[in-house]
């Protein structure tokens, strides 16, 4: 399996290198869909210039990345292109290995199921995946990430989103491998980068508990002991990172400039998210209230989803990622690419998906319409922001439909696994499942 992966990596790197050399790179780097005020490479360069001049990079309200990023690029700024390609490769390889491990685990568990086969109705066998099907899925995941146009655009624009994705994928890998400390450290790094991955704490803990056979039961002391251990490692490393940033810069400037910027959304440059138009239109005195409402959206779904999906932490991670990338304050296409990479993992849900055709049509059309409407609004001056926001809205509705569709399909498969695939009513006629 290494050979196809290598081939894939070579192809992906070639595409990126070719695009870096072409005149398109500059065009892509200016697209608001691809870079956000946080992740724009232009702003990183500005921050570096300020740092070199001995001024705090956060003075002047241009640079909003974290101190670690700027110190990273302080050393590798000449190799920025390679760094970003490397980040994509790391993400893809980490996802590849992690997904492979997930399936090994599935298989071992399936053997366990085979032992107690009487628990499952016979007709559910077709819901199980055959090993041949599973064999290609890790490769497909890597392919979905590396060859996704969204990822390519994001990489060519040198959006720091690619680095965040790499950190996330390392977190995912270490969690799947069951390494508690590294998982906590990488999760903390991801949180440090953009706050929102905070919500991934829950699935990570659930997964590790499952792996170490700790019962997920709030009445058990072992459960709380485990949570305390994980949170201690997580908060400890967060403390170290924050302290390190302080000592690197010698000031707390970065806290309001990075996290304040993410949470209070002062920059209303249009992007593919839901915030900008809403807050540009709003009266100032409602701002705080709606800010809270919008931001709580990201964190709100964690608890119910964790309770519902407590036996399926990997799916929970996927759901959380999607929720983050839809509701975060400065989303870019790179964030979307990350959760889309997980779609092949759920290929066994395809028979239960209902709106996939509609959703993929809408996503496709919206992706093409973004630059068109931007052109009409900004350059031609014949359209206005409402046109662009309409497409943003449609794009996000499609994403939400996609995610809820997968969620529904997942639950439905679980239901069929317990009650049999061909449901009968009490009178013997065929029953249908209705989501209400």
């Amino acid at each position: 399996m290494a050979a196809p992966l290598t081939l894939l990596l070579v192809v992906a790197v070639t595409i990126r290198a070719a695009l870096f050399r072409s005149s398109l790179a500059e065009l892509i780097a200016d697209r608001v869909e691809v870079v956000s005020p946080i992740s724009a490479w232009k702003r990183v360069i500005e921050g570096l210039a300020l740092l070199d001049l001995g001024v705090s990079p956060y003075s002047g309200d241009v640079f909003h990345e974290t101190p670690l990023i700027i110190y990273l690029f302080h050393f590798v700024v000449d190799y920025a292109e390679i760094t970003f390609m490397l980040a994509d490769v790391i993400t893809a390889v980490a996802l590849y290995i992690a997904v492979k491990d997930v399936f090994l685990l599935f298989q071992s568990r399936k053997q366990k199921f085979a032992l107690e086969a009487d628990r499952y109705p016979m007709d559910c066998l077709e819901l199980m995946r055959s090993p041949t099907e599973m064999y290609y899925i890790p490769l497909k995941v890597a392919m979905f990430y590396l060859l996704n146009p969204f990822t390519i655009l994001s990489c060519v624009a040198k959006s720091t989103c690619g680095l965040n994705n790499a950190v996330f994928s390392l977190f995912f890998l270490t969690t799947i491998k069951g390494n508690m400390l590294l998982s906590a450290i990488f999760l903390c790094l991801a949180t440090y980068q953009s706050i929102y991955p905070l919500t991934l704490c829950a699935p990570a803990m659930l997964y590790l508990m499952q792996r170490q056979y700790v019962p997920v039961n709030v009445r058990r002391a072992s459960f709380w002991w485990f949570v305390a251990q994980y949170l201690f490692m997580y908060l400890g490393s967060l403390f170290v990172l924050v302290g390190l940033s302080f000592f690197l810069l010698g000031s707390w400037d970065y806290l309001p400039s990075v996290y304040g910027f993410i949470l209070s959304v002062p920059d209303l440059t249009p992007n593919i998210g839901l915030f900008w138009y809403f807050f540009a239109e709003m009266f100032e005195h409602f701002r705080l209230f709606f800010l809270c409402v919008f931001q709580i959206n990201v964190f709100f779904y964690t608890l119910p989803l964790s309770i519902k999906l407590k036996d399926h932490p990997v799916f929970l991670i996927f759901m959380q990622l999607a929720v983050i990338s839809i509701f975060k304050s400065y989303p870019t296409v790179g964030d979307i690419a990350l959760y889309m990479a997980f779609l092949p993992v759920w290929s066994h849900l395809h028979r239960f998906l209902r709106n996939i055709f509609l959703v993929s049509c809408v996503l496709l059309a919206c992706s093409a319409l973004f630059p068109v409407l931007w052109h009409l609004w900004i350059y031609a001056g014949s359209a206005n922001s409402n046109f662009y926001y309409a497409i943003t809205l449609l794009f996000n509705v499609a994403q939400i439909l996609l995610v809820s569709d997968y969620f529904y399909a997942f639950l439905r498969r679980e239901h069929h696994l317990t009650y049999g695939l061909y449901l009968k009513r009490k009178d013997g006629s065929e029953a249908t499942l209705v989501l209400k």
Partner: protein
Amino acid sequence: MGLLSDPTRRRALISLLTRLNAPICVVCYMAGVAWFMGLAFEPFTLRTYMSENAMGSTMVEERFPAGERALATGREFSAHKKRVGGMPVDWLVKTMQARGLEVFTQRFSRTLPFPDEDKERYMVKGTNVYGILRAPRAPRTEALVLSAPCSPGDHNNQAVGLLLGLASYFRNQIFWAKDIIFLVNEHDLIGMQAWLEGYHHTNTTGMDWSPLQGRAGSIQAALSLELSSDVVTSLDLILEGLNGQLPNLDLANLFYAFCQKIGVLCTIQGKLQRNDWDSVSGYSHAVQTMMLMVLKQASGRPWGDHGLFLRYHIEAATVRGINSFRPYKTDCTTVGRLLEGMYRKLNNLLERLHQSYFFYLMPSLSHFVSIGYYMPAFGLLAAILLLRALDLWVQLSAAPQRDEDGVTDVEQTAPGVLSILTPLVISHLTGAALYSLPVRFQDVAVEHFPVSETEAVVLTAIAIYTAGLALPHNTQRLLSGEGTEQGWKVLKLLALLYLAVLLGCTALINFSLGFILALSLVPVAAFVTPHIPKLLSAVVLVLLSPACTLLFAVFFFHELQETPVSFHEGWLLYLSVISQGILDHCLYGSLLFPLAALLLYPCWLLFWNILFWK
């Protein structure tokens, strides 16, 4: 959301859509065409009205007296032009200075990628002369432009004369709140491009020009003037700019309002307005006017010197004087008064023209169709593509359920990826060749064949286009072997969605182009399968391909202009239209040629490929 989650209702709707797919598609197509034809019917259109308050309620009095003197200046200009054999730069500078303007010149040069046989130019060198009348009443942050091209021969001398006359008259008025730039540009659009690029410090097309020495504020509006006779019977307003962009409708309204006030005959597309909308001939007149606008807009080329202003977010139009055999004539003084009135209203603007519509079609100068009315016509055509795609999707997703074996499924789709990717890649490579080769290999072609450069470019383009018809389906058979039934369905599904997105985006930027392409490509996309009679459908497919659509459009355009051409003339025109299209792309950045070569043609090739699917 009930529809999205209730399985019974979904199933009912989907089965309805798949069972009645063909009839619904036919109905949609007819309805789309009927809707479009209905747009020209006067009761369905809106009357134009002035939206901009700053131009609407204020009264201005036009007093321009010096039409005769302007004509004399024009004759002087003509004499100097003849003597110098081009643009009389020194005379223009001197005359403008004498009229109290700040005068500057700009030199530019440009070598065309291949000779332009229509206008007989290859290595273009020229000078723009412009004078700025500084606004006496305001801080000079905004400007208006009045331009007149210095054309070869006897054309446009009166326009330059009137421009200079207006300049000396405007100089003595005290109410100007915006700088007024009087521009005489050489080599029509090339000079205009150089001047605009110089003014805005951009360089998008790699032209050489000397930087501008004097600038005024940000330009709010511009008019380009074309007058070739001492008296005119009517004034024609030209709106279509680069890539089908139109100025704000208020500019047209302003022109119309002043024509009404002063009593000048005004036309659009060279067609007078008629009042008998309820008669057949009146309706067909309106349809002709609208179709001319649609064809001109679809061509994506600037139809007057104003066309390039629109790219810089400046509302601009060309006013062209027409002298026909009508007995009632308008003299130069009246035209001058009309322009004076328009500039005084524009002078009152407090912000850029933005109140009125940017997306419209005009069946006459007094009526327009806005985007909300014409988009459904396109939407009905685009819906066909989505319906066909839905139908295919249902077929494709129903297929695996019949054979209940998971393993064979995977094996069926695995080679599918290659057999679908191959035509996609090949057709796009053909498109890329069509885009880049004609201009690049003109030298080689000229060496080996007895043709001129221009002919070489056009004929190479046509040759690549035709060769593309033979290439893709052969190579596809070669590479991936037997195509499956599912293979072509997946390919067609992709091609349908591709076309739908492509046409949708095109229609948003340039409705006319999107609609014309939809008219010809949607039937092809809807009916093509490998199981229909090959020869007949191949002929239909070729007839409805983008290149043939262009050929028909050329004939249709001349038919509408009431200058029908014979087939041979039409063919020559067709060749020159292609060369002009490529030139427009190289010179001004018109997007029609790359759109056609890189996206439309490959997309059409996919359908061609499906027809010959083995």
